[in-house]
Every structure is written in structure tokens, then in C-alpha cells.
């Protein structure tokens, strides 16, 4: 039998343990990354991926365990020593100063001394060599998110890294930007630089990675060859149980009756960091799901606030419920009219973390009590009144609680979201508006949440789904539009639009605005 040459190991970590208080983030993790390999780290939120790579990059120190680089044990005490050991990292949230230029941003992070002129030359060279296309003299605030990420990559490449760590790099990119990034990463790997790629997106891992290590609740449960597996297997290993497919019965009950309409809605931004909403036209019918795609920070928050009633419209007839103008109604009044919204932030916005579930139910139910015309019970309208409703929500939505009536922060993200969704749906809304309903929840909970949205539209309700997850948008929506820089694209049926088109719209590259439709 021919002996196959073992790949050379670049980084080998053994028995890494790390805990925060009682919470064990990493438990006896072994991982080894070969030279020139793209190694994916897969796991649900809270599985310990970020902790592990932060240990590799010296941001966190392991409680126990050893790290070897090129077969010699190293102690990575800080990001500085990580860089000296040839480890570079691109964080999920970029660490760039928006007011400075690309070159200045790279200069501050640089350990070696270099003349500014030489630096610019070097950046241009790297940028050309790796097809990163970044102008070193441009201000970071003028760059798109994708370009900013490329600046971070250049910053790492300046140090000639042997290992590049990328933490969820695609969560903020358009499909076009993602495929560009993958080209770059593959070229980097073939030139000998190893890449540790963190993601919870399965397709990406299959497409990009050589090896994939799956983490679950802080433990490494498998390392498998990414080329010889499929998404279903990965998902089930990651979650640890079989995943039920969505029962997709879209477009069954789509009606011609308009449920909610936005007409030429304009809203100037309230702070310097906000986005102005520009001439937004939107219609959603009963029985359909309208997906609003877009990259984070393009006006989703502002759109959500104006839809929910947390901010008021400039004109009453900017928003119509059926034919009734409701632009001046506040969120509580709209709830009474049958419009339920679920904001993106689960804690501190949709719920108060250190309040009990009954209190959090009371938060959006308080106006329902008391039913009796009794002065005392009117005076003493308190969360006790929501006890029964909260128990029903927990029961009907399979919310797993550690105890009866727990604090909201005792629930996991997925269970909390199930509660929030259940709380809204128990109000029997006519129109339901969701922002990022499955962001950061485990696959099991995500599937059940998505199924609920489908059921909702099938039962004849109108649903607006604002999401950055394109897969989710395409999976659930009947019609799709894209928000970019506060403006909404034309609304198209899902059959008439491709992911590529949506990607271009998300990047603001395709001109199919509302105005074209109306003229």
C-alpha cells in the first residue's frame, strides 16, 4: 500500500478548556490545522467557536490546554504575540476608524515601523496581487462593508500570516461579495496560508472548506472532510438531532386584498448615524409573505420603527391599514388594530431581560386588563394579570423554561424568540411584521419559527419579513424587495427574481426603484 504523505500540521491545539463562571465555553477541544488548508469551524450560536478562535488570537487565555505552532509549543498571551506567531484575524465586527483613511488604519495596527509612502506602495501592491482592489487613500467611512472587510484582510496580509482566522465573514456581504471573498481565500490557501473559517452557514462550508470541525456546547464532536459530506449531515451533526423540513405550502392563500400599504413615505433620519427613508412604496396582501432583503444598516431599523409605530409618520396617510390611514397611531394603538411587530433585538427591546415572562407578557398586553368595570382592579392593573396568558404562550409554543415563570434572561435565544413570537401571535394579528426572526437562534427553533410564519400567511394573514438572511427570504417569501440606503426596490414575485439580482440590489448596483414603477 502506498504511503500517503501526511499533510504538515501548522497549528495543533490540545485539550483546550475555557470557562466563564459556571459556563463552560470550551471543553477539551482538540483541533489541528494543516498548512494551506481551509479549516471550517461550524457550530450553533454559543457552541464556543468565537471563544476558541479568540484563544488562538490571544484575546482570551485558555484555562488549560496547549497550542503548538510548527510543532513547538507557544504561549499566545496577546494579539500582539499572536501576530508574531503568524496568526492574523478578521473580526466579525470590524475594528476600523471611519474617519481615517485605509492606509492610516493599517498603519496604527502595524507592529513594524514603515514610511508612509512605502506603506501606500505596499498596500497597492498587495491589493493588486490579491485582487482586493482597495484605494489606500480613501476614507474608511466611504467604503462599503465588503471593501472594509478587504481592508481588514490587507491589514492581516501585511504581517505575512501563516494562519488567517475569519469570524463569520459573510454575514454582512452580498452574494457577489461572498463569491469574491471565496476566490481570495482559495488563492490564499493555495499559496500556503492556512485559513480558519468560522461560520454557521452550511452551504458556504461545503463550497469553501477542506476540513470542518463541528463544535456543540463547547465540545468538538467531529472533524470531517468537507468535500465528502453534505449539508443535511452537517446540520444534523451540529444540532444533534434530525431536522424536519419545512412544510412549504406557499402562495396557497394569497389574496388580492391589500392589508397594509406604505405610500410615498419619507422620514428624515433622527440622528447622524441613522438612515433617512426615501420615498417608500410598499404593499402587502392578505395571505402573503413579503420579504425585505438588504444588508444591515440600510434603513431596516428605521423602516421597522415606522411600521411598528415607535416613530410617527410625517403624514397620516403615509401608512394605510386596508384603506384606513394610521400614520399617526402609536405602537399600542396599532397593536389594538391588529398589527404586531417583532423587532430585531430580542433583549432590551422586545423583552426586558431581568423581568419575568409574565411581566414581559404584560408589557404588550397591559391594555387588555382589567375587563371588569371595577375601580380597584383598574387601579391595580399589574403583571399578575398576565399570568395565565404567559403560561399559555409557554405551553402553546414549546418554550423551554428552567422553572415556572423564569426571568427572560434565563431563556436561551431560541426559546426567548419562540416566546416573543407566541406573544405576538396570541394577539391574533391581521398583519405581522418581523425583523430578523431567526437571527442567532439554533436550527431547531429557527425551523419552528419559520413554519409559524408560513402557517400565518396560509391562514390568510399578511406578513412582512425583514431579514438579512437571503436563504430565509427566498425560502419563505411570496414577493421580494430590497432595501438599500433607505430606499426600497420594486416588489417582485419570488419567481421573477434571482439571488443574483437581489445581491446587486443589495449593493445598490441595480436601478429598479419604486419611482420607475410609478412613472
Amino acid at each position, binding site marked *: 500500500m502506498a504511503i500517503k504523505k501526511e499533510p504538515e500540521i501548522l497549528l495543533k491545539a490540545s485539550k483546550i478548556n475555557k470557562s466563564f463562571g459556571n459556563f463552560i465555553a470550551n471543553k477539551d477541544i482538540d483541533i489541528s490545522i494543516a498548512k494551506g488548508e481551509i479549516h471550517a469551524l461550524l457550530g450553533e450560536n454559543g457552541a464556543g467557536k468565537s471563544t476558541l478562535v479568540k484563544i488562538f488570537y490571544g484575546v482570551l*487565555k485558555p484555562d488549560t490546554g496547549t497550542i503548538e505552532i510548527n510543532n513547538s509549543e507557544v504561549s499566545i498571551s496577546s494579539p500582539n504575540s499572536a501576530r508574531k506567531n503568524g496568526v492574523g484575524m478578521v473580526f466579525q465586527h470590524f475594528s476600523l476608524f471611519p474617519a481615517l483613511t485605509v492606509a492610516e488604519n493599517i498603519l496604527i495596527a502595524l507592529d513594524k515601523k514603515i514610511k508612509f509612502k512605502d506603506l501606500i506602495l505596499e498596500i497597492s501592491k498587495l491589493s493588486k496581487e490579491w485582487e482586493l482592489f482597495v484605494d489606500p487613500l480613501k476614507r474608511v467611512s466611504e467604503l462599503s462593508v465588503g471593501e472594509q472587510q478587504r481592508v481588514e484582510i490587507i491589514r492581516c496580509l501585511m504581517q505575512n500570516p501563516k494562519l488567517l482566522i475569519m469570524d463569520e465573514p459573510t454575514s454582512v456581504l452580498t452574494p457577489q461579495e461572498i463569491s469574491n471573498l471565496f476566490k481570495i481565500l482559495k488563492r490564499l490557501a493555495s499559496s500556503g496560508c492556512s485559513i480558519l473559517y468560522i461560520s454557521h452557514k452550511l452551504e458556504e462550508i461545503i463550497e469553501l472548506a477542506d476540513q470542518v470541525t463541528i463544535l456543540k456546547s463547547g465540545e468538538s464532536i467531529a472533524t470531517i472532510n468537507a468535500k465528502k459530506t453534505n449539508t443535511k449531515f452537517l446540520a444534523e451533526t451540529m444540532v444533534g438531532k434530525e431536522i424536519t423540513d419545512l412544510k412549504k405550502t406557499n402562495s396557497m392563500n394569497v389574496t388580492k386584498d391589500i392589508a397594509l400599504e406604505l405610500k410615498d413615505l419619507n422620514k428624515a433620519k433622527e440622528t447622524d448615524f441613522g438612515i433617512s427613508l426615501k420615498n417608500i412604496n410598499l404593499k402587502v396582501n392578505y395571505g402573503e409573505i413579503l420579504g425585505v432583503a438588504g444588508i444591515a444598516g440600510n434603513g431596516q431599523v428605521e423602516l421597522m420603527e415606522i411600521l411598528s409605530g415607535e416613530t410617527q409618520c410625517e403624514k397620516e396617510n403615509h401608512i394605510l391599514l386596508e384603506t384606513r390611514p394610521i400614520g399617526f397611531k402609536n405602537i399600542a394603538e396599532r397593536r389594538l388594530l391588529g398589527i404586531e411587530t417583532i423587532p430585531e*433585538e430580542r433583549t432590551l427591546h422586545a423583552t426586558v431581560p431581568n423581568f419575568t415572562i409574565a411581566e414581559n407578557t404584560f408589557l404588550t398586553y397591559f391594555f387588555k386588563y382589567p375587563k371588569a368595570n371595577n375601580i380597584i382592579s383598574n387601579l391595580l*392593573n399589574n403583571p399578575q394579570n398576565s399570568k395565565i396568558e404567559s403560561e399559555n404562550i409557554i405551553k402553546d409554543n414549546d418554550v423551554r423554561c428552567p422553572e415556572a415563570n423564569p426571568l427572560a434572561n434565563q431563556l436561551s435565544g431560541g426559546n426567548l424568540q419562540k416566546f416573543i413570537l407566541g406573544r405576538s401571535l396570541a394577539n391574533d394579528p391581521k398583519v405581522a411584521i418581523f425583523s430578523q426572526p431567526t437571527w442567532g437562534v439554533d436550527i431547531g427553533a429557527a425551523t419552528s419559527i419559520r413554519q409559524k410564519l408560513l402557517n400565518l400567511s396560509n391562514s390568510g394573514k399578511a406578513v412582512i419579513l425583514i431579514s438579512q438572511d437571503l436563504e430565509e427570504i427566498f425560502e419563505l417569501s411570496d414577493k421580494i424587495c430590497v432595501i438599500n440606503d433607505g430606499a426600497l426596490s420594486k416588489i417582485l414575485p419570488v419567481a421573477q427574481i434571482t439571488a443574483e439580482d437581489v445581491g446587486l440590489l443589495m449593493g445598490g448596483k441595480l436601478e429598479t426603484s419604486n419611482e420607475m414603477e410609478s412613472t
Partner: protein
Amino acid sequence: MITFIPRDKVSKNWTIIGPILSIFLTIFFGLLIFTFLGYNPLETLYQIFLSPFSRIDRISDILVKACPLIIVGIGLMLCFRANVWNIGAEGQFIMGTLLAGSFALLFPSVETKFFIFIMIVIGFIGGALWAFIPAILKTKLNVNEILVSLMLVYVAMLFIDFIVRGPLRDPMSFGFPLSKPYPEGAIINKIPFPAIGYLGQLHYGILFIILLIPISWLFVNKTLSGFKINVLGAAPKAAKFAGFKQNTITITVLLISGGLAGVAGVIEVSANIGQLQPEVSFGYGFTAIIVAFLGRLNPIGILFAGIIIATVKLGADNAQMSMGIPKVVTGLFEGILLFFLLTGETLQKYKIKWSKVT
């Protein structure tokens, strides 16, 4: 480096050990300081902690001293629960007293005790009006309420000084900056006990606390308005999501806390002084901030915190009178006590982790 790690749940052990350890450490450091300064340490501790309880009339004086602290503290509790930082209760106390007192002086011959209820209402209005200034500036112009409410304390202090030296000075006061005495109807009497007579200075104003504590407890725990205040403090965005009006809540808590500070002033002056003078408050408005937090923003806690602080204050007076220990030294001791009480409370919620600096 020291890091504080939040505990998942409040530690049961520390709920017991914490306060005991706090008291023990306070006593230990107290002994140390008093010894170094040349005072008999045990005698000093006795004066501060135990002498206020040594006679029944002294115990009633604790209640008298705690009365304004608790009333102001309850009002501040509402503000602090809503994350509204009213630091100016001292000024609201003064303005409530001044408005009600000036009103009383308009009726020099009123005798009916019902008059005191009118004064309490006017005192509430006076304090609330003074708190309305930071409230309106915060909600309309987004001006920080900490600065405005604090600065208005000094305005109020100087204003009452001007009034009692000028327009309201009693011509018969031999040049002292004092108003005429209040009419009979504006005086809160001491409580007579059968067979014993009066217990120190114990007066009918105490009844107000007996009413206020259960009502405020019901208000914050069992009413929608109380719930709104709690939500605004815990998560302002969630309050917006529920449809609660942030500005209305902010204005309401400032008006109530200012009003209660004014009422505290009316009761204090009507019961113990009986006329207007340049100094009516002796720092009650500021001390009540400590009382509110020491009582964990909870009416029953504030009752006990008010009593603890009043005890130590009276004990400090006793130590000064009987041993000549200056106020600064007992003030230092009060500081140590608060420091350890708050440390103990922190340890119930957080673990401490020591690590080497890398």
C-alpha cells in the same frame, strides 16, 4: 487585575455573610481609626451605634430624624427606578417648605389643624414646581437633569436666605434672619401618650410615613404606572416597544419626587421648627439619595435604610456632645459604613476574580 463576574443568581450565602461581614469590617476599621485618633474606641462605637437606642425618647428621635429622609427617599426611588437622576431633592425640599410656609404666614390667626393638610398640598406643589424645571428641560431640550436639578439646589438655598432676610423677616426677631412664627394651625403637634406624656420629639408627621410606605409599595409593584417606571429604567427601548411615553414618565417621576421632597420639608419645619429660617433642611435631600440606594429602591428597604442612617447621624451627635469627637471624624466613620454596606451588596451579585496583568 480584578474583574467582577456577575453571578447567575444572587448568592444565598453572601446574603447572610455580606451584611455581617460589612458590619464587622466597619467596626474593625472604626476601632482602628478611633484608636489612632486617640479616642476610646469602644466608647465611641457605643455612642454611635447603641446610645441612640439607650432611652425610649432617643429611639423616638431616630424616627423623627428618619422621617424626612424616608419621605424624600421614597420620591427619589421612583426617579432612580426610571433612570432619571434627580440630585436636587434638597432644593425641592426648600422650595416646598418656603411656598407652604409663606402661605401659612398669610393667615396669622388660623387655628384649625386641617390647615396642615392644605400646607402639605402646597408644599407638594412647591417641590414639584422646582422639579418641573429639570423635567421640562430634559424632555424638551434634552438637557441633563443631574446638572439642572443640582444647580437649582443652590438657587433655592440662596432664595430662601433672601426671603427670610428680606420680605418675610419678622420685625420682632432682633435682626435674626427668621420669619414670624407659624400660626397654630400650621404646627404639627407632638404625640401625647397616656401615662408617659411625650416621647421625645415624636410628632404626628410620622403618620404620613405609615401611609406613604404601603401606598408607594403598591404603586411600584402593583400598578400599571409603577410598571411603566420600572420598564423605562430597565430597558428604555422596551418601554417604547410597549407604547409607554418616555417623556410623560420622566416628567411624572420628577414631579412626584419633587413634590414628596416638598412635603418632607413642610412636615419637618411644621413639627420641629415652626417658622422659616435660612437653613431648613440640613442636607436631608442629599442624604436621602444614599437612603434610597441603601434601601435598594424598595419602600420597605428605604424605611430601614432611613432608620439606619438616622441612627448613625444621631449617634454622631451624641459622640460629639459626650466625647467631643468632631463631626468630620464621625462623618468619616459613616463613609466607612456605607462603603462596606455597598461592597457587601455587590458581593451578593458579583464574584471577584483576581488575575495577573498580562
